[in-house]
């Protein structure tokens, strides 16, 4: 972004304070443009022809330093790049690193379909949503255009996930493009030998293309400049991912250098970066070691500026940490991570159903909620307002107290004596020390649940309904 204060954006806006954008004033809207929480097109008046010039000028000033590129089409289209900062706390990182897992054209068809489906369906629940992976990369190991076309065709028949076509042979790439028309695949890759042919393909089919210049940033930049001159800025840069030793250290340098140059304003190199942790498999024979190392390399380049990557291991012990480290780095540090406090019904609770207490920290709430609902336990779940702090920290910090719990329950208009048959509250195991206080405060029976909500189902079997005293 070329400007950094609302005032600078303000002078391009219509200035009528018409509120079409949902903000009270143009100045307030300008502030949202600067922190990137609103898009310029949210101001409908500025789309009018008479503001055309102002619109285009401001649009350009607001454009992120690193170009944003789309891959794929339809609902599953992905965006990469678009960043403006080197450290997440300075704003946030945009467009999570996209993970593409590979298939290859010498695989038999059944295995290929199965693998594609596995990639497409992989999911892990986290904070109210599922973490999933994004793409399929199709490698030509045969170097045969026909075989490649057949594999690509099978993949696009099986999934809507965006794809990467991988070969250094332009003939092979062309065969892949022919059978994936309209899918806007990413081409991988142009290198120092094939760049003319690959550039022509990229222009002819109007698709994004990766430039591969292993450990040669001058060459990488030359290619990027040349492609831009030829008419396409839909570029992804691969400076090479060397998997071990000093070469890997050099790779790390290359990633940090390219991104710093881009953020510092060198437009010629300000494109998304690709990492290929796959190369870990060229350094390790044993599959567990290779998977581990691939995950390690993927984590390094998720943290340090990889925007898209090609991976091989689909072991859950590789995919789970990959998904979580990506979520860690791309969580918006400006966003509150809480749910609205109050009573939530899980399933269809009756007067005999248990009443559980938790906090309104999103991670805590969703963890508990999903543990309960996926085990088909009907209950009332209270998210007590702890300012979005988890159980243990809230007990330690005084946001989860007996008074807060009483207030939370009363506030929702629920009467434990009338609305339940048992007048009982279940506290999280980590809030055990509040038991006495909560009993005094609410006059209810208080039971202490397990420390981890994953154990609620087993605990319920043993302890619910409570023994009549």
């Amino acid at each position: 972004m070329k400007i950094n204060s609302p005032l600078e954006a303000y002078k391009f806006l219509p200035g009528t304070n018409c509120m079409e954008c949902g903000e009270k004033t143009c100045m307030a809207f300008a502030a949202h443009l600067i922190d990137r929480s609103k898009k310029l097109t949210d101001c409908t008046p500025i789309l009018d022809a008479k503001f055309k010039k102002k619109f285009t000028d401001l649009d350009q000033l607001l454009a992120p330093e690193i170009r944003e590129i789309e891959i794929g089409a339809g609902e599953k289209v992905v965006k990469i790049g678009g960043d403006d900062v080197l450290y997440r706390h300075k704003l946030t990182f945009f467009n999570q690193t996209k993970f593409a897992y590979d298939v290859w054209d010498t695989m038999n068809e059944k295995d290929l379909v199965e693998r594609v489906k596995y990639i497409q369906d992989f999911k892990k629940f986290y904070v109210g949503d599922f973490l999933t992976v994004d793409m399929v990369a199709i490698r030509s190991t045969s170097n045969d255009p026909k075989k490649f076309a057949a594999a690509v065709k099978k993949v696009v028949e099986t999934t809507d996930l965006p794809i990467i076509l991988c070969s250094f042979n332009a003939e092979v790439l062309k065969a892949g493009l022919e059978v994936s028309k309209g899918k806007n695949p990413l081409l991988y890759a142009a290198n120092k030998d094939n760049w003319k042919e690959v550039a022509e393909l990229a222009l002819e089919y109007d698709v994004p293309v990766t430039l591969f210049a292993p450990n040669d940033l001058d060459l990488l930049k030359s290619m990027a400049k040349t492609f831009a001159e030829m008419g396409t800025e839909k570029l992804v840069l691969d400076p090479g991912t060397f998997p071990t030793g000093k070469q890997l250290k050099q790779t790390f340098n290359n990633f940090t250098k390219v991104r710093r140059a881009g953020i510092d304003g060198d437009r010629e190199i300000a494109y998304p970066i690709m990492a290929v942790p796959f190369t870990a498999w060229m350094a390790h024979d044993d599959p567990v070691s290779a998977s581990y190392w691939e995950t390690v390399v993927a984590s390094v380049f998720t943290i340090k500026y990889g925007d898209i990557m090609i991976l091989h291991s689909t072991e859950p012990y590789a995919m789970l940490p990959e998904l979580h480290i990506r979520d860690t780095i791309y969580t918006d540090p400006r966003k509150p991570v809480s749910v609205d406090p109050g009573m939530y019904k899980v399933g269809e609770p009756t007067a005999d159903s248990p009443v559980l207490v938790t906090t309104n920290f999103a991670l805590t709430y969703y963890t508990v909620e999903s543990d309960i609902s996926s085990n088909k336990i009907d209950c009332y779940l209270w998210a007590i307002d702890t300012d979005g702090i988890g159980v243990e920290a809230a007990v330690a910090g005084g946001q989860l107290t007996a008074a807060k719990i009483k207030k939370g329950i009363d506030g929702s208009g629920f009467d434990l004596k009338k609305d339940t048959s048992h007048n009982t509250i279940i506290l999280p195991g980590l809030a055990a020390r509040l038991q006495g206080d909560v009993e005094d405060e609410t006059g209810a029976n208080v039971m202490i649940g397990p420390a981890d909500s994953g154990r609620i189902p087993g605990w319920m079997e043993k302890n619910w309904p409570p023994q009549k005293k």
Partner: protein
Amino acid sequence: MTKKMKLSQLSDMLQDLNVESLEGVTIEGDIELNITGGGGLNPALAYAIGSEISQISLHMANIGRILGFPAEQLFASAFGLGEMPQPQALPASPKIQELLASKFEVAKIDNWKNPIQEVTLGATSADGGSRKSTVTLGGENALPYYFDAEMPHRNYITMDVFDMPINMAKSVKGNYEDVINDPAEWAKKVVREFNADMVTIHLISTDPLINDTSAKEAAKVVEDVLQAVDVPIVIGGSGNPEKDPEVLEKAAEVAEGERVLLASASLNLDYERIAKAAINHGHVVLSWTQLEINAQKELNRKLMKQCNVPRDSIIMDPTTAALGYGLDYAYTNMERIRLAGLMGDDELTFPMSSGTTNAWGAREAWMVSSPLKQDSDWGPREYRGPIWEIVTGLALSLAGNDMFMMMHPTSVQVLKEITQTLYGSIEAEEIDITNWIGAEV
């Protein structure tokens, strides 16, 4: 970055130029501009400032013209008033035969001027101790592994030993069953078999709610461990704020001269006693705060100013949350601390330590399988646990963490491999990736 400037300074700046054109402008009161990225500004005030500034800039532009600068053109292009170059129709893609020449260049960061403090743990006989080797942390002039400046010391790993059997994830426990009742043997095992650079002895049995082991008895365990291994050691309390000062004092006394790391001083206990124990017996203090940069500054300041702990005897633990359980806080907290230190905040220029073992608290690390039926299969937990610890540590190593407290031998081995690779000390066979697409795997 915030830049501050007062409008009245403008006239001062222009004084020497003998300029008369500013006469028409009066600046009533004075406005200090805080120009920061983002954030809102009261629209009415903004308008007022805008008008003030615009007027001034007109006058300034006049001055510019008097001095020979074509200010009109600048205004015209800035506000899109004058002739704008017409957007050209896209040329038919030129047939380019040679790559256009271009050289990649990037600047080094110029505001990393303040080196991180070097801190040495352990003392050899030359320095009055009995360690065979010492460990030096810190000294960085840049973010870890960055090309801006060589990193002077590699990362180090200290492995956990407990003074009593504790609950551990199954895949961790398997490695320690034979030594679980003998801290000295346990310490030997992590050094000899698992390649630990250091050993941490956690005196958790001293907690009044656990065994309430006396400080004196606990100190004996420390002596045993010092006898058993010749690497530098860390001594940890139980975390009980009433008991820890006493336990750590006694431990510091029996470890006199060995330059151990005392873990920890924190704001919720009598940190002064721990600081004194370190000063009196030549040790280093671990300054532990919970994920809050200002609390970290406060505690470091108190240790330095109030307790007179020398700068070369402080290490920070800004707290480690596991991958998926607050690592986003922990990562950014460390990264901000390190950047602030490099840019000159002397209250934050200390090496950092991470309780990476916390990763084992994540259910993904220890549960047999997902408690959720909708989740894809989580696979074998024996492989999930170690990688959870590795990725947690690895992320923090990139945020600037120097030393890792860890538990699983595989995690230790892999984290050492990657941090030393990025540090630049791992020689490996060069691999040609030019045709990686065709690789058979």
